[in-house]
């Protein structure tokens, strides 16, 4: 991890203790990366700005759930940001949902960011992606980095929606086998 890991960890810990100066510094340090993630996924500057504010409100309230010994602070922060941005995206995008009615219970379950994110994984993902055919690797990458939905991926790769989905699910199982080796 980068040199900033120790500092981020410290800032998150102090944020959990409601240290507002530490929280402000955490925003300075982590804000640009999280803003980049929001912009990339939401592709709308105004929406990304709103999202970033909500993400930091979330971070303020949930910083105490970050577990320093087993989690990289950047991974935890990114997960909070990505989850929030994807939720917004799926709530608005055509093709993001077959069922349109808003579900207020959606936020009721614990989010993934409160679960530990282990540090030890490195860049194995690149190796495993390279074992997929290039279009399939690209589909996985686009989904993760750009937030592409199945509808968008099916358009991009010019395959029927169901085909796209079984494609990607098979790729995931293959990836998972590779990562377990």
């Amino acid at each position, binding site marked *: 991890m980068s040199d900033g890991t120790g500092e981020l960890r410290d800032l998150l810990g102090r944020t959990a203790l409601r240290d507002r100066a530490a929280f402000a510094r955490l925003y300075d340090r982590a804000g*640009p990366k999280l803003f980049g993630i929001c*912009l990339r996924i939401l592709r709308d500057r105004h929406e990304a700005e709103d999202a970033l504010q909500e993400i930091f409100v979330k971070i303020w309230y949930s910083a105490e*759930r970050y577990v320093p010994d087993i989690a990289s602070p950047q991974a935890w922060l990114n997960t909070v940001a990505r989850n929030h941005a994807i939720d917004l*995206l799926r709530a608005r995008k055509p093709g993001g949902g*077959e069922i349109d009615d808003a579900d*207020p219970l959606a936020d009721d*379950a614990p989010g993934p960011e409160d679960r530990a994110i282990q540090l030890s994984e490195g860049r194995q*993902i690149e190796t495993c992606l390279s074992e997929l055919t290039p279009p399939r690797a690209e589909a996985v990458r686009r989904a993760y980095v750009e937030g592409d939905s199945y509808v968008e991926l099916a358009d991009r790769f010019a395959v029927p929606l169901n085909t796209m989905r079984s494609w990607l699910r098979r790729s*995931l199982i293959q990836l998972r086998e590779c990562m377990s080796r």
Partner: protein
Amino acid sequence: MTTDPDPLDPRDVASAGEYVLGTLPRAERDLFRRRLAGEPALRAEVTRWEVHFHPLSDEVAPVDTPPNLWPGIERRLFEPSVARDSGVSPFWRWLGLGAGLATAVLAGILWLGPVRLPDGGQLWVSDMVSADGAVRLAALYDERSGEMRVSVGGAEPGAGRDFELWLIQGDRAPISLGVMPHRGQAAMPIPPELRMLVANATLAITDEPAGGTPTGVATGPVVASAPLRRI
């Protein structure tokens, strides 16, 4: 960390991957998230995918944040409502705390620091003070009785407004614990199904229309918040 004694169905492995990638349509995403609450093995699988995919974030370049964002975050979290006039009849049931000991504990929280009860019961406290120090609210939760006691001091909400108390546990939607009296003390029983959520939660007060939020979710700014800590 959760250990994973039973191998997951490959379909669940793929679903967890889809969930982390974010490709699931909204309804399925919500459904999957609800499953996570009760399935530790599935949660562990999601964590694995988060770990696996995280390095892909490296290709996302940081972007300078516009200068107006941070003040907006501070406003949302810390800006107290500036208001004086009260006059709203408190619908909160007022309770004399009875036991002088409990009163002493609340007083201790507000002004003297934590106090330990002699009988060793598990107690949680939260000291909420607005950024400008004007609004103060201390809460004491007794696990054995399942009762939350609050002591409200300082500035009162504006005319036609009430302070509402919220329980925030992790990523769950904030749960309303009720509208606060404008001043003095109150006690509220925490419903049994919420009691398991109190430990290490955060309490927050928001500024709401009289009688509390009409929508079930907080509509006003957070006036003050603080985590519950064991004493």
